[in-house]
């Protein structure tokens, strides 16, 4: 168990980070190359002001018609994404590990708060799951991969909570927590979680088309 612990908390972290960073860079680079070859309009009509204006209207909740029409989902989705990004960066355990490995550190979240935020993330996943199973237009386009992705996103938080509360064996849960975190990290560039990488690009493109070519709003 100790050897396994050392492996997942040591080399595997670096392997996962490398795959995540390298994979993401490769995905973005190859998409841009492909667009230069086959979708030259994307570059011809690209417009920074319109791209940024569009992104702004979509990262601010309720700044567009679509989020106003779905208030509950909007709140859940925004909180989910915010916490999902903030927790791994500011949770004390991660920063401590980083400090030990590289001597880098920054302010951290109080443990109780981080715990509560993890519950919120898991709650949001349950909400997404329920929505997938009950809202007809979502159910109709749901496939197995959607559940896998949801599980991948939820797993680090579920195991994090269990480990923190020492349920199911602290070391065992910590190992699972690290494994699931690493799995998610690697999955980002190689699954539909890559929407994290592509979203700014697709948004910037449609914002440019709507703004610079069609002279209309896209929100």
């Amino acid at each position, binding site marked *: 168990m100790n050897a396994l612990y050392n492996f997942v908390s040591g080399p595997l972290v670096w392997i996962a980070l490398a795959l995540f960073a390298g994979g993401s860079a490769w995905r973005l680079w190859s*998409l*841009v190359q*492909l*667009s230069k*070859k*086959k*979708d030259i*309009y*994307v570059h*011809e*009509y690209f417009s920074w002001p319109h791209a940024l204006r*569009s992104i702004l209207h*979509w990262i601010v909740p309720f700044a*567009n*018609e*679509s*989020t106003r*029409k*779905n208030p509950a*989902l909007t709140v859940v989705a925004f909180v989910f994404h915010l916490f999902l990004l903030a927790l791994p960066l500011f949770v004390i355990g991660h920063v401590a590990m980083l400090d030990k490995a590289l001597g880098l550190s920054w302010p951290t979240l109080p443990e109780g708060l981080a715990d509560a935020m993890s519950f919120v993330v898991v709650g949001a996943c349950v909400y997404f799951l329920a929505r997938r199973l009950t*809202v*007809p*237009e*979502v*159910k*109709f*386009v*749901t*496939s197995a991969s*959607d559940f896998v992705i949801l599980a991948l996103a939820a797993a680090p938080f579920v195991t994090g909570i269990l480990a923190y509360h020492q349920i199911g064996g602290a070391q065992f849960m910590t190992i699972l927590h690290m494994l699931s975190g690493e799995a998610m990290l690697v999955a980002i560039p190689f699954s*539909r979680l*890559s*929407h994290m990488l*592509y*979203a700014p*690009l*697709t*948004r910037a*493109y*449609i*914002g440019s*088309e*709507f703004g610079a*070519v*069609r*002279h*209309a*709003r*896209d*929100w």
Partner: protein
Amino acid sequence: MSSQPYELVKDKGLDEGVARLTPEKIAKVVGAVLESEGGARLKAYVDTCAHCGLCAEACHFFHSHDRDPRYAPVAKVKQTLWGILDKGGAVSPDYIARASRVAYTECNLCKRCAMYCPFGIDIAYVVGLMRRICHKLGVTPQYIQDTAHSHSATMNQMWVKDDEWIDSLMWQEAEARDEVADLRIPLEKHGAEIMYSVIGPEPKFRTQLIYQAAVIMHAAGVDWTMPATPGWDNSDMAMYSGDYEIMGRLKRSHFECAQRLGVKRIVMGECGHAFRSVHDVGNRWLGWRDEPVPVIHAVQFYHELITSGKIMIAKKFQEPVTFHDPCNIARGMGLHEMGREVARALCEEVVEMTPNREHNYCCSAGGGVINCGPPFRNTRVHGNKVKAEQLAATGVKTVIAPCHNCHGGLEDIIHHYKLDMKLKFLGDLIYECMEKPWN
């Protein structure tokens, strides 16, 4: 709801096209189209879509069918290209039979859904790519294919022969001369400021619009001309059937016509899809970033004439009206405010529909759906109950729609849902309300 069976509407072009398909042919065509045209956008869209269903809210088909999930924009992708991509092109002719109907007749390519997707996924683009595949497979609705043939053979949509075109113009000139003695429809005037271009159905079915345009040009003292050769038609159904080769020929002939005449710019009649073709689609296919000759839509032109005082309004239209935003010039060119300003200059009262402007619902005729002809009339009309409700809620009896297709679509909706309304072009109202200095 989704439990209702889906019946394939019969259509000669689609049915016979599907009957000729073999799995090998499908795989080959799909492979070739995706290889040459399915690029980064398709990849990013398919990989990014979170299957969240938020785009459903955008679609008039979805709302009109009581939120039947099959009509959600993302569901249209699922029923068309997703299946094909998932199976690497190994889909059956039956799959294509359904996919072609979805692509050609259950989506107006109105791009409203692009405004409701958090990632800005352009489903109209994906549906358009599916049509491209269908076209290459030879599975195209009979009526729109006929139109594409007409474009190909005559460079206009309605199989108007070269001499018939000139005849129609001369006939309208003669008619108008009863009203305005010295009116001309200048043909082939080299170096004129403006080339006026219309869509094929104008000389064929709505010739009085050319009459009215001539009277407006005359009153405003515009230096204009119309071409006597192919290229006069700015319309483009090949763009919607997926026949981009013909689309390119059409746009080239339209612009070359203007260049041959040496005009400064092209003014288009009140049509939405033709504007999309010259501004947004056909030009790109030909590798022109912008139009090689500046093109403006009738709404922009009328706005210019009215605000510059070239056309004076003698009396305003008394009844309250409502203004339908054609997607291709509102969501497609941001002309919604200008259109309203023209309408307000002409009418006492403009009552708004909701939603409106960029968020307006399509008339359900667009994207070539009306051109798929009578077999799909009900698909269109049932698919746009929300538009009928939207129209009825205004309580007015006159709808202004500065787009030919919208007229066709709205007419059918008004008739089917028994609304007591009539349709007008902005040109109709200008002709009716303007000061005619010769009177």
